[in-house]
């Protein structure tokens, strides 16, 4: 077998691709953080990546020591600098010079790490299809991770950063996300403070949790007995019910909004939080019932039968045996319903006219006008996002287990 084969050429290709990708990303990161108009040197980055990859994967895997990897990173930066005419990030080294150095070191480290991990345990030899696929998949997965992370995080990053800037700075250089900490916390968080003092966000921040928590309580109060009945009791129509529950959840909100608007207007319930607290549970009960019945089915019936034998009534069996066992499912359903109610926009937007009754979603819709500066809009978005996201991440495991329990089987 020859010393060099397809793996080596693939490594060169992936080295060049990584070089281009990371040069763009790190340069843009430097641009965002510093506000200096850096320009990614894509071609030079690709060339540097190719040469660094060639250098590192020229050796068999056991010889790629830490020293070798550092050397490869160093070579990458040298080639990048030379090939780009001494402007590795598109601006003269004198601009933001210490920062440039830090970002170049970061770039070198990421590059050597990327090449090393892509070529891990493979020498520069000719290999079978299996290993060719492994190395290609490594690159694709690595690229996928980077792409997904940036695509998901970018809007949130922009949301947070814009809320901390002011309109003039945003308009003059929209790519400058550097934060001026010297101005003090009060100036930095000015748009948040103004939202609470001038835009009633304090009361929105009371209304949203109120509506959401009441919705959760009503939903559970209705859905738990219903789910138990569908899952455990035998009665005519049981099969039909367990299948038609989800059908209710497929009824579009937009079809309900016109009749509910008309009826609630005439009953005087439209511009009230009670109206929302009636509509939200009605839309969440079917899905809560569906999730819960899936979980109740998973609890061994023998446990409940033992309780019945010992003389507990059905209601007591539910209270003392089933519910404690179903606690994780209850938590996940509660969280999911809370999320739906907190994020709900359509009915809050259509029903509420009174500023004192606004939920966060409705309040942000009010900020979406040309008279309100953008940083206020984004600060409002952050205020609405942080509680629900924090709650969700905190209980993520619960939620994932509960969400998927009802539907994923065998």
């Amino acid at each position, binding site marked *: 077998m020859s010393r060099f084969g397809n793996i080596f050429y693939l490594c060169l290709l992936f080295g060049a691709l990584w070089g281009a990708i990371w040069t763009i990303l790190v340069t843009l990161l430097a641009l965002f953080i510093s506000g200096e108009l850096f320009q990614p040197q894509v071609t030079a980055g690709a060339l540097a990546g190719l040469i660094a990859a060639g250098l590192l994967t020229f050796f068999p895997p056991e010889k790629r020591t830490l020293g070798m990897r550092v050397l490869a990173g160093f070579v990458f930066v040298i080639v990048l600098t030379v090939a780009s005419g001494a402007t590795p990030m598109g601006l003269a080294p004198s601009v933001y010079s210490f920062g440039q150095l830090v970002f170049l070191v970061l770039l070198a480290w990421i590059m050597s790490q990327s090449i090393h991990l892509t070529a891990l345990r493979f020498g520069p030899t000719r290999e079978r299809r299996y290993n060719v696929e492994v190395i290609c998949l490594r690159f694709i997965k690595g690229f*996928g991770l980077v792409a997904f992370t940036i695509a998901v995080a970018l809007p949130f990053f922009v949301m947070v950063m814009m809320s901390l800037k002011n309109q003039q700075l945003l308009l003059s250089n929209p790519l400058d996300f550097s934060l001026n900490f010297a101005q003090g916390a009060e100036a930095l968080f000015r748009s948040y403070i103004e939202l609470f003092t001038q835009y009633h966000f304090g009361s929105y921040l009371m209304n949203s949790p109120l509506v959401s928590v009441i919705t959760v309580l009503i939903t559970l109060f209705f859905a738990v007995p219903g789910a138990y009945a569908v899952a455990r009791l035998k009665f005519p129509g049981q099969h039909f019910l367990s299948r038609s529950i989800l059908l209710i959840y497929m009824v579009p909100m*937009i*079809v309900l909004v016109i009749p509910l608007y008309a009826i609630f207007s005439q009953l005087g319930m439209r511009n009230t939080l009670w109206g929302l607290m009636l509509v939200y549970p009605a839309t969440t009960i079917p899905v809560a019932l569906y999730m819960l019945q899936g979980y109740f089915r998973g609890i061994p019936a023998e446990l409940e039968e033992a309780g019945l034998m010992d003389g507990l009534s059905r209601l007591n069996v539910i209270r003392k045996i089933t519910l404690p066992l179903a606690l994780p499912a209850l938590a996940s359903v509660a969280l999911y319903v809370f999320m739906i109610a907190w994020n709900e926009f359509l009915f809050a937007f259509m029903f509420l006219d009174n500023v004192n009754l606004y939920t966060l979603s409705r309040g942000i819709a009010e900020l979406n006008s040309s008279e309100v500066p953008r940083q206020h809009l984004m600060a409002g978005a952050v205020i609405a996002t942080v509680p629900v996201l924090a709650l969700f991440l905190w209980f993520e495991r619960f939620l994932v287990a509960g969400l998927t329990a009802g539907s994923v089987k065998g």
Partner: protein
Amino acid sequence: MTTEPIPPKGLGPLAKRETRFAYALLLPTFLIVLSVVLFPLFANVWISFKPVTLGDLRAPSILVNERLMGDLAAVGDEADIRYRIRNSSRQSDITDVFMTDTLPATLDVLTFDDRCTIDDSAIACDLGDYEAGKREEIIVRVAATQAFVDAPINVKDTESAFDFLPENILLNDDFTLENFRKVFNASDFWPVLWASLYYTIAVTVGALVMGLFAAQLMNMTFKGRSFLRGLYLSPYVAPVIAVALAWVLLLDPGPGGTLNALLIQLGVIDGPISFLGQRAVDINILGMTLEFPVALTVVIVFEIWRYFPLAMLFILARMQSVSTDIYEAAEIDGATPLQQFRFISLPQLMGIMAVLFLLRFIWTFNKFDDIFLLTGGAAGTRTLTVNVYEQAFAVSNLGAGAAVAVVVFLILLFFSVIFFKFSPEDDA
């Protein structure tokens, strides 16, 4: 002498009790779903056949203007108390109008309308029905007494009270097919329907493919995996209005739009693109000019971004329940990673992917807020659901909006039937 045992017929007493108990447990759910989902569904169909506009929802009422015509300065002076009464609405009738008022006790009542009765100083008039826009005057002739001259009272000090039955615009027997005629004759009905279907299919397939890819990534073990999983779920968890408006600012074509500035800085484009405001751009491929829908594509990308996490979650859960033995066996047989994916993972995931496809298809078709917040239905992104809002609340024609909603519902019903036909039996 043994008789063949006969199975009991019908439900036994225990089973009957269980049935009753089950119905009792389901009753609250049934009631709320009936009143807030099923009844409105029916009401929507009802409204779609009625000529109702947004303004009609304000119930008509009786307006009155009470005035003293004349001078009551000396004893024996005569004057008219005039009530000008009208129906506030020009469209709907009011029935059983009944007026009551208190006249100053110190005035002598001389003559009054024959529909009224006077008891001491209280006047009560049974005015009958007021058709739309009707106005009339009720006149009571009075004379001043010494007590009145000594202590004059303004007749307006006592408000006249009305009792009446306004016609309910939603309940009258006025029906029309005009709403549906309007919906189907509108020049944009078919484009809107096509945009809805194109959008729904593209989003559903896109979110599934992206979810499958992300699930593959999350199925690897590496440091920081649970952090990344949380991050990837956040587009789905965050409030739609927050992320939609963040995208709007991100894609802004004016000064301050991040993505346009970024693309210009990278040299990809020369001038800003109005991502959410441009209907289509012509692309030349091999001499053929293709029309590429810009705004619709951006809306689809947003929707995929927002809903791939859900697909990821379900696919990942299914992947992690597949036993590793199969993969080990395949490994020994020399199957490459792609072959393992193609011949082991994919067939195992087909079930959940099919269910996800059908569910997501329906939910995406239902979606309103996302497009409404991103473009408001402009630039070729108007789907049927946005059209419902547009007709009912922007054009203020509730009936026409309800008619579009009926069309939406019928299409969904069709999809749901398909869903039920093909959904795997998993309620064993």
